[in-house]
């Protein structure tokens, strides 16, 4: 379609009437999602406009790709159709920082950095450190249920959200949860929205509970000769009285495995914690290190090229054997491995190799190891073509029909991110 044809199209006219012509523009090649070229990019200014856009597209059989910072649009199964990108860029305000209540109400398009900046003025923070905070938005972080290294102390992002506002394909705007830290009225639809990858509705607003910014922070590293020993050390720390806000294993080689620990609090207590850490660690020495170690996760995603990045969820006690299995498989296949595993049992793995075949070999081996451990493995990033031979989500077995029923109830027309989620939802 030529530009002129596009703009005379009925859908275009309808949509621009909803948001105003200045907020609907033809899509450029930069707006492509995994090489699928959308028609236009629409930027509604209110939740009601988002709902109207969804409603119109739903009835016209057009598909919508919600977009926050656009850092994670490759997540999920291969996309088949993308008519409009719905950008949340205009919904980017921090509505209310009720610092006395330690809560904040924020629009979905607000970036994490901007949000944290506002909270910092009152010495508070959102207890989560998702990747690319300068671009990643509240809505994107919620849609992907991304939390980061602070999760071991503050919980997952789901535990920090008190409520959400969401626009649905039937044109309604719903509110789930609320503004207070305790609330059991009605079903917890916030949990349903979080991690649903924009397949049920578009999150337009969220309320978070907050934490104080600690006075002091210190990070430490210990270097161990095997993953098994590193894993043992992590388990000892988990079983201790130490109050850590980060606990992570980082490895590029099977015989040099780093354990990172972060303490936060008042300076006196940090010294005390460090002394106790020394006693737990025994012979393996912890030394202070730069806080950059907590960006090792994010670094996995730099210059992706043809690499594969996957997320493995196992039990904390299984990290050692997962790590061993990985290096054992990767070496003969000449695949380079970087592993960053949190003490919670969530491990992110990057695989680099010259060709696709060795990557597939290691991925299959990794998946069968994770299956053996009764964990899960999802592929967060890989060359698009690889998605044809790979189920990025893994199998979800007997719960799939229930998930499909839920999708059917909220987005029967498959308007939102069609096909991208588990089992082709």
């Amino acid at each position, binding site marked *: 379609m030529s530009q002129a044809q596009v703009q005379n199209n009925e859908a275009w006219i309808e949509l621009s009437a909803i948001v105003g012509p200045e907020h609907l523009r033809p899509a450029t090649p930069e707006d492509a999602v995994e090489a699928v070229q959308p028609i236009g990019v629409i930027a509604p200014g209110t939740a009601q406009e988002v709902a109207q856009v969804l409603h119109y597209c739903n009835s016209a059989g057009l598909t919508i790709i919600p977009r926050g910072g656009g850092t994670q649009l490759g997540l999920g199964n291969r996309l088949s159709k993308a008519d409009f990108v719905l950008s949340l860029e205009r919904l980017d305000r921090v509505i209310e920082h009720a610092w*006395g*209540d330690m*809560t904040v109400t924020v629009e979905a398009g607000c970036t994490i950095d901007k949000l944290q900046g506002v909270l910092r003025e009152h010495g508070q923070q959102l207890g989560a450190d998702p990747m690319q905070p300068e671009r990643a938005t509240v809505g994107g972080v919620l849609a992907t*249920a991304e939390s980061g290294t602070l999760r071991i102390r503050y919980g*997952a992002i789901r*535990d920090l959200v008190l409520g959400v506002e969401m626009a*649905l394909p039937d044109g*309604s*705007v*719903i*509110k*789930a949860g*609320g503004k*207070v*830290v*305790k*609330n*059991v*009225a*009605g*079903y*917890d*639809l916030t*949990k*349903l929205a*979080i991690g*649903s990858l924009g397949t049920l509705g578009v999150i337009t607003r969220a309320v978070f509970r907050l934490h*104080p*910014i600690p006075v002091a922070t210190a990070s430490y590293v210990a270097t161990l000769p095997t993953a098994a020993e590193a894993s043992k050390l992590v*388990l000892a720390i988990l*079983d201790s*009285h130490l109050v850590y806000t980060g606990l992570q294993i980082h490895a590029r080689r099977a015989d040099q495995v780093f354990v990172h620990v972060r303490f936060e*609090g*008042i300076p*006196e*207590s940090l010294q*005390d*914690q460090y002394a106790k850490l020394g006693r737990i660690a025994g012979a393996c020495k912890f030394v202070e290190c730069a806080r950059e170690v907590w960006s090792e996760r994010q670094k996995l995603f730099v210059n992706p090229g043809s690499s594969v990045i996957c*997320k493995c*969820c196992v*039990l*904390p*006690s299984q990290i050692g054997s997962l790590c061993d299995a990985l290096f054992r498989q990767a070496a003969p296949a000449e695949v380079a491995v970087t592993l960053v595993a949190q003490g*919670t*049992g969530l491990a992110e793995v990057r695989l680099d190799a010259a060709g696709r075949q060795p990557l597939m070999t290691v991925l299959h081996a990794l998946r069968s190891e994770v299956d053996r451990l*009764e964990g*899960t493995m999802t592929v967060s990033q890989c060359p698009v073509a690889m998605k044809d031979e790979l189920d990025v*989500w*893994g199998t*979800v077995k*007997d*719960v*799939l029909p*229930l*998930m499909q029923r*839920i999708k*059917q*109830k909220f987005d029967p027309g498959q308007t939102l991110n069609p096909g991208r989620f588990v*089992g082709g*939802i």
Partner: protein
Amino acid sequence: MNARLVSEFRSIVGDAGLVSGPEQLRTYECDGLTLFRVVPDLVLLPATSQEVQAIVKVCHRERIPMVARGSGTGLSGGALPVKGGVVIGVSRMNRILEVDIPNARVVVEPGVTNSAITAAVSPHGYFYAPDPSSQVVCTVAGNVAENSGGAHCFKYGVTTTYILGLEVVLSDGSLLRLGGTSLDQPGYDLVGAFVGSEGTFGIITKITLRVIKKPETTQTLMAAFNSSSEAGAAVSAIIASGMFPAALEIMDRLALEAAEAAVHPNYPNCQALLLVELDGSTREVELLMEKVGPICQSCGAWELRLAKTEAERMAVWKGRKAAFAAVGRISPNYLVQDGVIPRTALPRVLGEIDRLSAEKSLRVANVFHAGDGNLHPLVLYDRRIAGQEERAMELAEDILRLCVEAGGSITGEHGIGEEKKQFMPVMFSAADLDAMQRLRSAFDPFDLCNPTKMFPGTDAKVQRPVAYEPHPIEIAGLAQRY
């Protein structure tokens, strides 16, 4: 219920699992909210997931409504039987199946009590954090269904934070495993959706949950104030100083009087008492506690007492927990509410409650989780005096509306159940309620699991908050209401 069906159920659960005698059925006619009563047609007490599944398949085939039941301590009528339906009690499924200390996970059957979990892991230095004061009797399944809270949820969060996996039987008889033992299962967060669904999504048959390490040190400070507003200001000041206490509780004059009458905790004789509990590493707790005192004093505290030993702390908490039920000592009848407000609205809402209380000439005692803004206003009255019960109910209703207007919730931990369903439209729009119904119908398309609860039905007559009567376990001294 016809004899053919009864014998079919009997063939599933055996004689030990079937209750059909009129007298025994009465035991199941209500939960902790004793004013609603419905005698069930039949009570089934399965011993395994397979038995639950077989029961549900029959109910599905015959379209018989089912109400799941744990220990029946719920305070909103959640386990109230439904006319013409069966009650499925999970009390016989009470084994702890697996304790995995290195990974801090425990797998239990649904009828295990809340305290049994802590008992199982406490030798290893762990505990199960959500601590409703009914914990000695209430079941984990009941906790999951209500998303129960406790005194320490300001810091530790409520039940939903601790549930990793559920095995459930849906109304069509399918047995599903939601979530798992490791975190972040791909797909929708079905566990998160199920927690707090008050028995309307299906029957829980197994639960995988997380336990946590006990803190190294815990200390509790009592601070005496001349008013609840001053105590409330101290709460805000403590939080503003960057501390994150494990518990922040306020008791007002009436509640203190009641506690004193019941268990003689020997609290300072004051208008409002604030309890501040700090836990964590010993060094940090000691240093921070030194700051809490002066903060309280700057807000008007005129006496401070620190409970350092476990025994001293227990005495403080005993008084706090007793305060609730002890109100019975200073008033013949009372109503319990469970509203939540943003913490900063405390002074205003408390002032407003005072005004309403004067207007209706009824006393209101307040015991609350100040950190969470979870109020438990107790409306005191005497049923024998004509018109008082009516006025008490109006007052309780006004207080709930006040909470919603302040940006809060009509329930922080007790649930909607039968009691508060007519208040749902006060908090939620028609679209919000419709979205909830869609979710419900995805789980239970035939509306067989605990139907008629949680949502205002078309035929629902407007019900008033109902008077509180002591629950049998309270009378037995097993629990105090919080």
